[in-house]
């Protein structure tokens, strides 16, 4: 009997060691592109795309270039930051207004509205692009002054992404509202004073995702800036450094820019990871 349990323990140990080996391999695969990126960013040798990973010459020159007056990087960074800031406030507000109304109230057009949004969501988003460009250019919000336009585009239709917030609100007992209403609270007070404080985790999730969105926003940003350097965000700007005409002179700058963009987002993300996981798993189960 003893021998057999020894065998089991040994077997388990082997299984665990295999698992560790696989996990280490996975970690390497997932982390190595970022290490390469970091190494390239510190390489002040040849600025173009080179095969070698290890820097020819170490230095901070690439970063210095980004922050110098020569490059538009700071402008792009600032643009993106402003957009992200407005987007996270605006999108969160829009999504919660929508989610709260659909979750806590029962009215005649509720189902048709939800179906309508579901159907609209099935159209590829780009279809709206040329119309939005025309509308925004009528308002003078394209090209070099694309930032307000992008903010508007980011916020306006964001009510359609109400699903995660609604899923969370649906799990909150109705008795909370009723108790407050018996005490004479208006529906607005119930919303503002009773329910919203309880929604902290999901509010943080929404703020986090909507803040991260604009950093990677590529298609709309490119379409609305239309090549004007002053209106680009980091994604469009850095991508323009990888054009076949630019890549030979700018590749290492791209790497340095990527590092600068990624670091704050990663730090923010790691701090708020818990909330992100909560939102993602909740959203997936509800569908």
């Amino acid at each position, binding site marked *: 009997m003893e021998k057999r349990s020894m065998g089991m323990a040994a077997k*388990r140990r082997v299984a665990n060691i295999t*698992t*560790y080996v696989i*996990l280490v391999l*996975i*970690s390497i695969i*997932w982390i190595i*592109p*970022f290490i*390469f*990126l970091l190494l390239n960013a510190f390489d002040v040798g040849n600025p173009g795309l*080179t095969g070698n*990973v290890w820097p020819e010459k170490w230095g901070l020159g690439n970063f210095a270039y980004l922050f110098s007056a020569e490059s538009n990087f700071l402008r792009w960074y600032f643009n993106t930051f402003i957009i992200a800031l407005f987007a996270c406030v605006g999108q969160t507000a*829009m*999504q919660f*207004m*929508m989610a*709260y*109304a659909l979750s806590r*109230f029962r009215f005649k057009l509720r189902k048709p509205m939800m179906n309508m*949004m579901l159907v*609209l969501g*099935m*159209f*590829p988003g*780009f*279809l*709206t*692009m*040329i*119309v*939005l460009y025309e509308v925004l250019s009528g308002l003078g919000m394209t090209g070099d002054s694309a930032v307000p336009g992008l903010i508007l*585009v980011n916020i*306006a*239709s964001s*009510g*359609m992404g109400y699903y995660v917030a609604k899923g969370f609100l649906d799990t909150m007992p109705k008795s909370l509202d009723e108790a407050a209403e018996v005490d004479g609270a*208006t*529906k*607005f007070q119930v*919303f503002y004073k009773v329910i919203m404080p309880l929604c902290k985790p999901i509010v943080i999730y929404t703020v986090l995702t909507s803040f991260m969105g604009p950093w990677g926003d*590529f*298609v709309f940003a490119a*379409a609305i800036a239309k090549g004007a350097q002053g209106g680009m965000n980091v*994604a469009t700007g*850095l*991508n323009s450094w*990888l054009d076949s005409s630019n890549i030979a002179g700018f590749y290492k700058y791209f790497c340095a820019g990527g590092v600068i963009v*990624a670091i704050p987002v*990663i730090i*923010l*993300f*790691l701090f708020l*990871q818990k909330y992100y*996981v909560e939102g*993602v*798993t909740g959203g*997936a*189960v509800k*569908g």
Partner: protein
Amino acid sequence: MEKLDKDSYLKLSKWKRFVYKFKYFFLITIPRVFFKIEILDALSYLKLNRWQKLGYKIKYFYLIKIPRFFKNLGLKIWKGIKGFGLGVAHFFKNLFVTFKEGDKFTKLSYLFMGVGSFARGQILRGILFALMEIVFILYMILTGGYYLGKLNSLGLVQPLDADENLVANADNSFRILLYGVLTIFFIVAFIYTWYLNIKQNRINEQIKKDEKAIATTKDDLRAVVDQQFHRTLLALPTLGIIVFTLLPIVFMILVAFTNYDKNHNGISNALFGWVGFDNFGQLFSWSNGTNTFSATFGEILLWTLIWAFFATFTNYFLGLVVAMLINKKGIKLKKVWRTILVMSIAVPQFISLLYIKNIFAFDGIINDIIKFFGGQPVHFMDDQASPLMVRVTVILINIWIGIPYLMLVTTGILMNIPADLYESASIDGANVFQQYTKITLPYMLFVTGPYLLTSFTGNMNNFNVIYLLTGGAPHPQEMLKVNAGQTDLLITWLFKLTIDDSNYALGAVLGIIVFIIVAVISLIVYNILPSTKNEEAFQ
């Protein structure tokens, strides 16, 4: 066909026997095997062997479930049409009855909105109704009427005259279509407000008859934050969606029926006009072998579906495996493993995608490593690569991108699987693999069914991965004519057609097709999915 008994069959000549067999096979055997189903009860179902069970399930699916689904769909549509018809009848009946039975203020409200409200002391409502009417009339006179009148032709005065000079008062098809649609939206909104205004009168008359108090302006203002609070909440988001999503989509659906492209841009070279279903014809004219649009469309559609399938399921199963490895009993540093993977979600996708693209470039790092070990450099994702190579590479890279996300999604759910399920399974002697296929997988599929569906349709429209990694490469000559490549998805092709080629009409057609495919898949799967039918299976 006539069935023969054994004697008469044996009397036939050899050739006739062959013909008989042939006919028998196609007219009797095949229909019996494929198109007929005997509904089995549970006991006789359990008696079948594994393959018979599978066959039965498949047959049941397409012979019973799918027809039932379409029958229900038809019934639903019919009910919808009937409901709509009844609604319209009700609408007109209400208008008529209210007018006949109403007092003079009610009657006046038909022409001058808000009169009834003013007369009954609801100043705020009166002002809003009157304002709506004034704005509407002004809008229609100043601009709306003009655009609405031209919507039929999309403009007649061409921007260039015979000598290619700019014409001063030329029409602008784009504006005519856009503002025409906007005007129609506005008219619908106006009719709704007008109806509301009349309904108010009816309701207030009823309240007066019952000798109750009519809502005052103060009550109305309170309702904004109380009884009607949902309307307050919905107003802004809905307006945003209507203007920034609904309006553009309706516009683009209409563009699919015009010849809006770079030679007819509606502003500076030539107007565009209605062409009916011509654009759809371009994509679906299979008979014409030289039509590269239809040939390309077929290839891209096929690849889009293949891609969506592989991208969804490789990520799903591997993500699940990684989550299980990390969750395994006795594994330490769970948080560290998870954080390492999650970091790749935090990095904006364009950085990781563009960087990985360059790692896999012909003069990139991977090829350097291959050369270091004495191999030949490989074309992974450029125009010289073989299509299969590019497709496999893209799917592999997509695994890299998708696994962390799936790992997060599945970790939470995995922890919810009741542990006693596994315990009793291992007491009964089930090994790890059996536990995975009999407990973990069914449970996960059940819970995440809707998620799988959304990620399938999401992958069909996964613009970033394809556009940033390959840009559609490789581009064979035939496909390059219509600006497509062999790894283009419908969505990236749509993007290239509209943005690079300014072929808006065809882009719009593709958009509609993407919509139809996504909608049909979602509709069917949602109706068949176990989690929407049998909600208590795992409770």
